[in-house]
């Protein structure tokens, strides 16, 4: 888990496809949520004037989204649950786009209803139905199956459900219609207890409705009498009391009903799959009143519908492979809108404002209600494309201006900082990734734009469909090799340095869909082989050294899903989409065996251990013994990385890959593509954590295991992160010396354009690497990060800062930043994204701020994440002490080293904020409670204290002595940030706010004449903080001293502190420290009395 992954999307001009399969409007009518066939969710802002603008794209599902529903009481927590075709369920916080909870269940839901009975339940339930018998009850918080509503009579799949709250009988019931057309009624409120005790709950009533394909069932809450049931070919109205049929309306030819809703008493709306809707008044027929049933029972009311109004969408749609998904929301709060909404496969959303009293025309004919708003993702792109931010635009300096290059495949080589892009016309561009990104994003870099160093490889005549850089996967292979495959079945082996073709393979097997490499443990006569998967479902093995094709396996009838290697017997095991397995003998090229069904699964599982190492982590173990269904889809959807993106077209496939892959460098570029279109876009990924690791020259000390007795506890709990950092840190120690000299030996501002330079450096580093390799853990993938050119690291950091800085808020500040930080201004607002956890990803869309109305006026080109940022940053700044000491180091800003120090300082701040806000929810709760009782340090001794996690990050960052020395500065910072988190401030907002405040602070000091004031007091915690920065600054002054400082604080921390307090650089530290401390007093004078309260409480356990 890399929670510190920052993403910047280079969207280009075309919006990614978003075929809407599910749509809902949140209860506050401020947001529309859509789910797509491609697997993403999209959040759209809905203004009070009913204007739509797309805001954010959420990546997380690997298959088509089936349904969306509210997952909490919306006024308290804005959570929405989404369910995908492969059984994935996610709960999203739709205000900040984060995935709160996720689960994979072996059930495919088609509808979800949220139910909560406040008096008797702590957590709400999600009542789900779908491709399984009866109705599942899932806990809305943990997504665990609690129980089921079972049916005693003819149990079957349920098509639709609806919850009925009846005021008169004070009972909540669940109405459900099965695929066979059986209406079933379960009591909910009276069976809560038995559900909690896991007793069987059977249906109370059941009635056969005599129609198939039920699409919706709705209860009229106004009359509490009528029940509307919409089938695909007819809709019916029933009397809720005895389920007697009152009316049947059959659809016209070629028309399929898709749903309906009750608008008011005796008024309903019905919509169809092709996007039309009809509003009917249900009239009592005059006849019925006079007719009493012969048997003397109740009066039989008969009704008939009268069409009042209708709505329709514009015709001329290119693609209608999916029906329109529509819904209706009737909001009781301001501004009282009744909205009919629809989403369609093209990604268009249409809204109709339904009048409170819909009436027909004077002559009685139905009136057409006009469309209120309509919007697509592309509209966002068009409206906002003042700057098209792409990497590829600058490839073709020699090409026509208006001709754009369509990138069809792309590969980033971190060790060389090269971005290799295969284009639709068959050319392959190789360019410096960082510079290309800069050229795309930043302004004033016109020099770069014109003469972006690039290489063009010409050899393919058709679109380049796949690329592979073998050295990136196995360091034994030649660094100059690149393998590319095209649409016409050619695979070319290139030397990227000399730009020549080493060999051309012609596979005669259709488009080359992917190129893979055999794992390290699989060697054919001590060589690794390249495996090409082609669109005619064949697999070819290429031997690069020998320049020959070893095997062409052409008997697969279905797309290849899985490739496994059997090193002992030299077998290639190919798993296909129809779950069959083909085993090929590589030496002889014969089909050794073909298996289907159960046996095939067993075979695939058997060679698990001999599988490709990387796919292993992503590829599913198909054997997982789920009770039934939806397992099969999983395998397909997750297989994108290794073999082939097949049925489940995954846009986010590559995002997933990014996270799952040992993404080791601080910077990465990914091409995100969808299967059903050629629209792709690049994402830049910045890893704050590893950036810092590279930038911080001192060997950072992690929690010292011998020092603190609860360390094992920390390690156990925060395994993933802390352990990782310890690992990398250990390595840091070994390499740090030579590397950091390299890093800073060069003037930072110099342009690192020459590729040779990079190579040379990385070779040097290689030497270092080999030394430490012995110590390395076997498990770890060869780290690329070490190889990255030092200048690149700083440049990466600068680019990241450029992307994050809220440009345009303050012109003067902008200029100061450009001048003193030596960073460049953005061309326009950038689309930030965040990789939250393992495979959940959110990306802002261009123009996400289009309807932040206040902002639109004054700042048309402001890179502000949200309005909140300014307030937050003000808050942050206001806690600064008035007489803060000047960072002396910044005075002589001509020194580029100082500048880089500032950058490092800013980044470390950001990293901290990021970590704090991103903290898992449980941790946060634990921390908050700790705050409340103000006994953080008492708790600290108890094994269950979670604060250690944070502070371990923190101390790692700050090179603190040990856990027990947690200063109150930490705590106050934690408190401020956790305060933000509670107000559901987004990570990006927090980061931007802190950055703005810090930069403002620094730049302000530069505007004035620097006042060199002594730190008013060096508190204990101050010392501790200084230790972190001091070695760095000292070293900055005198690189030769570096080695000593590297080790010095480690051994004798106390003495170094004393030494520090004399040095000027302490001032710098103090400014950083003060705000944190003062947060507590909310910008009152930083008096120490209050502090002491804290300190006493804090210290009671550790020292006193």
């Amino acid at each position, binding site marked *: 888990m890399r929670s510190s992954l920052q993403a910047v999307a280079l969207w280009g001009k075309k919006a990614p496809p978003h*075929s809407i399969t599910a749509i809902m409007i949140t209860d506050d009518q401020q947001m529309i949520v859509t789910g797509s*066939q491609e697997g993403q969710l999209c959040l759209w802002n809905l203004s009070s004037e009913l204007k739509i603008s797309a805001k954010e794209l959420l990546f997380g599902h690997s298959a088509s989204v089936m349904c969306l529903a509210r997952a909490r009481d919306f006024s308290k927590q804005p959570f929405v649950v989404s369910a995908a*075709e492969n059984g994935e369920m996610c709960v999203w916080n739709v205000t900040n786009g984060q995935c709160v909870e996720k689960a994979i269940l072996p059930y495919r839901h088609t509808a979800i209803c949220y139910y909560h009975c406040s008096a008797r339940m702590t957590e709400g339930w999600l009542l789900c139905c779908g*491709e*399984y*018998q009866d109705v599942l009850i899932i806990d809305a918080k943990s997504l665990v199956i609690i129980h089921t509503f079972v049916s005693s009579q003819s*149990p*079957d*799949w349920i098509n639709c459900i609806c919850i009925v709250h009846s005021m008169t009988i004070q009972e909540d019931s669940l109405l459900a219609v099965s*695929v066979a057309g059986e209406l079933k009624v379960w009591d909910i409120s009276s069976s809560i207890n038995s559900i909690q005790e896991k007793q069987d709950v059977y249906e109370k009533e059941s009635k056969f409705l005599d129609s198939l*394909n039920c699409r919706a069932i709705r209860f009229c809450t106004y009359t509490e009498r009528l029940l509307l049931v919409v089938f*695909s070919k007819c809709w019916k109205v029933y009397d809720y009391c005895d389920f007697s049929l009152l009316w049947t309306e059959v659809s016209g030819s*070629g028309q*399929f009903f898709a749903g309906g809703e009750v608008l008011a008493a005796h008024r309903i709306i019905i919509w169809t*799959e092709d996007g039309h809707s009809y509003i009917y008044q249900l009239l009592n027929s005059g006849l019925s009143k006079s007719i009493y049933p012969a048997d003397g029972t109740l009066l039989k009311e008969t009704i008939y519908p009268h069409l009042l109004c209708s709505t329709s969408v514009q015709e001329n749609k*290119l*693609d*209608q*492979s*999916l*029906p329109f998904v529509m819904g209706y929301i009737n909001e009781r709060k301001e501004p009282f809108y009744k909205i009919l909404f629809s989403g369609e496969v093209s990604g268009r959303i249409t809204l109709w404002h339904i009048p409170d009293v819909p009436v027909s025309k004077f002559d009685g004919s139905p009136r057409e209600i006009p469309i209120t708003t309509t919007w697509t993702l592309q509209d966002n792109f068009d409206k906002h494309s003042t700057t098209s931010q792409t990497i590829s635009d600058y490839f073709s300096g020699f090409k026509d201006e208006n001709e754009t290059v369509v990138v069809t495949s792309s590969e980033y080589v971190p060790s060389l900082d090269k971005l290799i892009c295969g284009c*639709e016309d068959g050319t392959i561009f190789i360019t410096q990734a960082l510079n290309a990104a800069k050229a795309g994003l930043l302004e004033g870099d016109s020099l770069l734009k014109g003469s972006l160093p690039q290489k063009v490889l010409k050899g393919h005549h*058709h*679109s380049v469909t796949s690329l592979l850089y073998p050295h990136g996967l196995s360091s034994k292979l030649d660094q100059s090799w690149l393998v590319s495959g095209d*649409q*016409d079945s050619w695979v070319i082996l290139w030397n990227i340095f000399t730009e020549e073709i080493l060999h051309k393979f012609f596979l005669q097997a*259709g488009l080359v869909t992917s190129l893979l490499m055999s794992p390290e443990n699989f060697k054919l006569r001590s060589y690794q082989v390249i495996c090409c998967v082609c*669109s*005619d479902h064949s697999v070819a093995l290429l031997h690069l050294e020998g320049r020959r094709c070893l095997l062409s396996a*052409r*008997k697969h*009838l*279905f*797309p290849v899903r899985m490739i496994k290697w059997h090193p002992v017997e030299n077998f290639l095991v190919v798993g296909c*989409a*129809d*779950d069959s397995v083909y085993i090929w003998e590589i030496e002889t090229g014969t*089909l050794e065996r*073909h298996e*289907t*069904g*159960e046996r095939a*699964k067993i075979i695939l599982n058997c060679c698990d251990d001999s599988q490709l190492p990387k796919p292993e982590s992503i590829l599913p173990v198909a054997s997982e*013994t789920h*009770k*039934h*269904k*939806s397992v*099969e*889809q999983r395998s397909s959807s997750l297989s994108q990385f290794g073999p082939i993106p097949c*049925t489940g077209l995954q846009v986010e496939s590559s995002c997933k890959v990014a996270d799952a892959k040992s993404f080791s460098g601080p910077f990465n570029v990914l091409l995100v593509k969808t*299967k*059903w*279109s*050629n629209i792709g876009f690049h994402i830049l990924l910045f890893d704050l954590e590893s950036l810092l690791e590279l930038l911080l020259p001192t060997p950072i000390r992690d929690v010292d295991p011998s020092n603190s007795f609860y360390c094992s506890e920390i390690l156990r709990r925060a395994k993933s992160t802390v352990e990782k950092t310890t690992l990398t840190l250990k390595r840091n120690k070994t390499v740090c010396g030579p590397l950091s000299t390299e890093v800073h030996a060069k003037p930072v501002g110099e342009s690192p354009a020459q590729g040779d330079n990079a190579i040379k450096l990385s070779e040097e580093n290689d030497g270092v690497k080999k030394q430490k390799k012995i110590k390395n853990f076997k498990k770890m993938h060869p780290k690329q990060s070490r190889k990255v050119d030092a200048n690149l690291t700083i440049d990466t950091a600068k680019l990241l800062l450029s992307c994050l800085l809220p440009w345009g808020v303050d012109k003067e500040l902008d200029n100061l930043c450009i001048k003193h930080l030596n960073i460049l201004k953005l061309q326009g607002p950038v689309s930030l994204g965040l990789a939250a956890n393992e495979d959940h990803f959110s990306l802002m869309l261009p123009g996400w701020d289009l309807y932040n109305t206040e902002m639109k006026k004054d700042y048309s080109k402001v890179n502000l994440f949200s309005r909140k940022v300014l307030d937050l940053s003000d808050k942050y700044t206001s806690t600064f002490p008035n007489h803060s000491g000047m960072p002396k180091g910044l005075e002589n800003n001509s020194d580029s080293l100082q500048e880089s120090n500032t950058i490092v300082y800013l980044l470390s701040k950001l990293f901290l904020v990021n970590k704090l806000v991103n903290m898992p929810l449980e941790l946060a709760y634990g921390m908050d409670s700790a705050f409340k009782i103000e006994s953080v340090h008492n708790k600290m001794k108890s094994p269950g204290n979670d604060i250690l996690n944070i502070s371990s990050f923190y101390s790692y960052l700050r090179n603190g002595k040990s856990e027990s020395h947690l200063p109150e500065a930490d705590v106050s910072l934690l408190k401020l940030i956790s305060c933000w988190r509670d107000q559901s401030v987004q990570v990006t907002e927090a980061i931007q706010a802190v950055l703005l405040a810090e930069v403002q602070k620094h730049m302000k000091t530069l505007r004035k004449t620097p006042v060199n004031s002594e730190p008013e007091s060096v508190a204990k915690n101050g010392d501790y903080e200084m230790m972190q920065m001091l070695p760095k600054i000292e070293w900055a002054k005198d690189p030769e001293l570096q080695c000593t400082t590297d080790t010095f604080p480690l051994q004798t921390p106390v003495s170094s502190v004393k030494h520090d307090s004399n040095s000027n650089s302490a001032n710098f530290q103090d400014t950083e420290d003060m705000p944190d401390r003062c947060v507590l007093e909310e910008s009152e004078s930083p008096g120490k009395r209050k502090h002491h309260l804290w300190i006493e409480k804090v210290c009671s356990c550790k020292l006193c």
Partner: protein
Amino acid sequence: MATEEEFRWLLHDEVHAVLRQLQDILKEASLRFTLPGSGTEGPTKQENFVLGSCGTDQVKGVLTLQGDALSQADVNLKMPRNNQLLHFAFREDKQWKLQQIQDARNHVSQAIYLLANRDESYQFRTGAEVLKLMDAVMLQLTRARNRLTTPATLTLPEIAASGLTRMFAPTLPSDLLVNVYINLNKLCLTVYQLHTLQPNSTKNFRPAGGAVLHSPGAMFEWGTQRLEVSHVHKVESVIPWLNDALVFFTVSLQLCQQLKDKCPPGPGARNSPSGTRRSSFVSRVCREYSCHSREYNCHSREYNCHSREYSCHSQEYSCHSWEYSRHSREYSCHSREYSRHSREYSRHSWS
């Protein structure tokens, strides 16, 4: 230009032809699930299946299938120790839903529903549209097939807790467990005989995981007791219409895949930037076809040889060789179809 015409022909004629064929096959398949003579009115017809096994005859039984539900069961079990004959049957008032059949049937009707919305009057505009539809249909069909081919793997406590054990009229003795499932085209009944493990037993207790068929020696904990499977009896009977349904699934899946292979992804020929890109389209299709039919031929040859090989093996493989022969039958039928197709194609490309 010619390529555009070909593409249009694909979208306007060929796709609909395939869809019609698919629909016919799937309708035929869904008919198998609702037995002949059943219809919407009246109760579903009952079918009796006599269960047997090739080995011993310690378990004999007759299961009555009514649509997707077991309405009656008569099982005779000869206890191995004392040759005592046990007989148990379903309670009159109860039916046991075979969920695998129900799910398969529902998946098929979902697939049919997807296709029904795309009749001749519907105009496909892009290849992507066809691909998406095919993906959706194939998903349903794979699920339908997988439900039949992969029975649920249950743990022994799950079997013990299942409602099936409560279905019998003289209640099952506590040392017996019963499970019924579908495996491919067979209706299978397994009877587990149990014995209690003594608490002070020296045997190493290791609860067994989930499995379709547990083997003797599998242990589990039920209530306070620790139990071990002492004997396993498995009897089965072929359901002919399930066999048909499986064949239909396989055939229609392949039809879908072939249609997918013909459709170019992307926006379609109209928006294609260069004519050259699509020029190879028909030739590619033809090449693929010929290559496919070659493949099929060699497949069936392989299968034949495989089945010969397998038949040499003991009876254990009998069911497999059956499967293979079924496959080879399918494939031969396919290659016939393919040759027809390629004929059609060549005719078209000439015209």
